[in-house]
């Protein structure tokens, strides 16, 4: 296994509806927690990468504002963006900076303050997430994009609305035990099935909630990591891929091709197979997205994702525990912070620090973070 780049520190704020603080203050909290997690001081950080989806920012070029507030000047800083997968894109860039020798310790800080905008402004931006020339003029928006996948998955494989709903039931169970999650209430199958329709067949509880929050992941070279901590978590595999932005031009409408490709790269680099993964965080922005992720990451065959959740195989004691922190559906989805939060969960699992949510003996973990409707995908394989 490659032991060249490691994660040494992680932190995140609580994910909330409206945080009541600035983006700088949000990032400060996550950064401070990550520094304390590995006993580093700001002066030990060589470089910072700030990640968010810019359409939600009021501040132009947030990297500069945040780097200043964290007291990191004159250290280099810049912005990394791939919408919902921005912070794992930041980790990918950090990996490159460290392997090239340009930096030894890099802080990847992801954030989003979605309450910065009025719901009307959010609604306006929502309409521009698809191809603005040929698809936005019809009123396409994110849940409708995933709904088109959901309907096609149901038609092709016989996946049911109950199976989709079971993903949310699982998420709510673990979010209830995660103090940083937005939802602190368990929901039943009936709650999900009876929630109002957003874009058929997806209902309100099939969709994750917009949120405010920040995350921080501190990445270090092998040499530094061994000095900083006794429990470095190694980035054993890292894969990244893209697919068409246009919904009609996706390679496949039953799964996310970018996930398949990013996972192939990550498994090959880490020299492991899907069956070797002990715990996974997958990008469940919608219930259908988690079911497709099971299949596209190789946890089951194409078309068997519905059955996998039905059998309870992705619960904490199942064959492949998935999103044992509530996932996006349970924690909320502050776009730029989400990938870093997923990584934090897996790092805690591999260190054995996940408390009530600990998957026993977890040694190899996977993070799957998607941007847009299957537009960008990053897959990381982490090892103790």
């Amino acid at each position, binding site marked *: 296994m490659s032991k060249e780049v490691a994660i040494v520190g992680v932190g995140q704020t609580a994910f909330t509806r409206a945080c009541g603080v600035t983006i700088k203050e949000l990032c400060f909290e996550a950064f401070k927690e990550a520094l304390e997690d590995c006993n580093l001081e700001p002066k030990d950080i060589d470089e910072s990468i700030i990640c968010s989806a810019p359409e939600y920012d009021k501040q132009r070029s947030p990297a500069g504002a945040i780097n200043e507030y964290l007291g990191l000047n004159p250290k280099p800083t810049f912005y990394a963006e791939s919408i919902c997968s921005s912070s794992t894109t930041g980790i990918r860039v950090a990996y490159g900076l460290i392997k090239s020798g340009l930096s030894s310790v890099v802080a990847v800080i992801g954030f989003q303050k979605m309450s910065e905008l009025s719901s009307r402004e959010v609604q306006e931006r929502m309409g521009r997430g698809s191809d603005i020339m040929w698809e936005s003029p019809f009123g396409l*928006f994110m849940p409708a994009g995933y709904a088109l996948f959901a309907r096609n998955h149901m038609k092709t494989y016989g996946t049911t609305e109950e199976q989709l709903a079971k993903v949310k039931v699982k998420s709510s169970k673990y979010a209830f035990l995660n103090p940083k999650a937005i939802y602190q209430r368990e929901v039943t199958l009936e709650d999900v099935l009876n929630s109002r329709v957003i874009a058929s067949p997806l209902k309100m509880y099939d969709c994750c909630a917009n949120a405010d929050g920040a995350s921080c992941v501190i990445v270090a070279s092998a040499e530094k990591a061994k000095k900083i901590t006794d429990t470095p978590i190694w980035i054993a595999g890292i894969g990244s891929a893209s697919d068409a932005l246009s919904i009609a031009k996706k390679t496949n409408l039953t799964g996310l091709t970018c996930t398949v490709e990013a996972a192939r790269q990550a498994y090959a680099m880490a020299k492991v197979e899907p069956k070797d993964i002990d715990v996974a965080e997958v990008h469940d922005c919608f219930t259908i997205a988690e079911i497709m992720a099971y299949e596209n990451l190789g946890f089951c065959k194409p078309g068997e994702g519905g059955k996998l959740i039905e059998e309870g195989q992705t619960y904490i004691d199942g064959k492949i525990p998935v999103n044992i922190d509530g996932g996006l559906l349970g924690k909320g989805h502050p776009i730029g912070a989400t990938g870093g939060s997923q990584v934090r969960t897996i790092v805690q699992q591999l260190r054995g620090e996940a408390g009530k949510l600990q998957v026993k003996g977890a040694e190899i973990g996977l993070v799957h973070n998607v941007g847009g409707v299957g537009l960008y995908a990053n897959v990381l394989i982490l090892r103790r």
Partner: protein
Amino acid sequence: MGFERFGKVSYVSETKVKDFVNYLEQGKIMGTQCRICKKIYFPPQMDCNNCYSKDSMVWREIVNEWTLITYTTAHFAPTGFEDDIPYILAIAESPEGIRLFARLSKDVSEDQLKPGMKLKLVPVRLPNDKISYEFKPIGG
């Protein structure tokens, strides 16, 4: 200028394919094709991303037969579409192997839809001198 007439809410005005709107006005649904590598584009574009030949693209009428793949009824909408709720969004495929995303005609309801059903694409005039296209069931 010119392309801003396409769609209920438009975000693009200048493009090399603005003639698409004029063709649509005449009832023609036009795609483009590269004269060199023969790749067909719909929606149209004037740059060939297959062979990258210069000035190789020509307008051509598309084969207007579509098979419904998937659809969703939106009960929620981005800014500018609130009055349309509920509306049906669909993806369909043509015999030329083109997949297209568009709205379904307002006079069709979700329970009338079945993946695999045949559709055609028709120009549709909208208020404020705007124009678009939508899927309509054949015979419907």
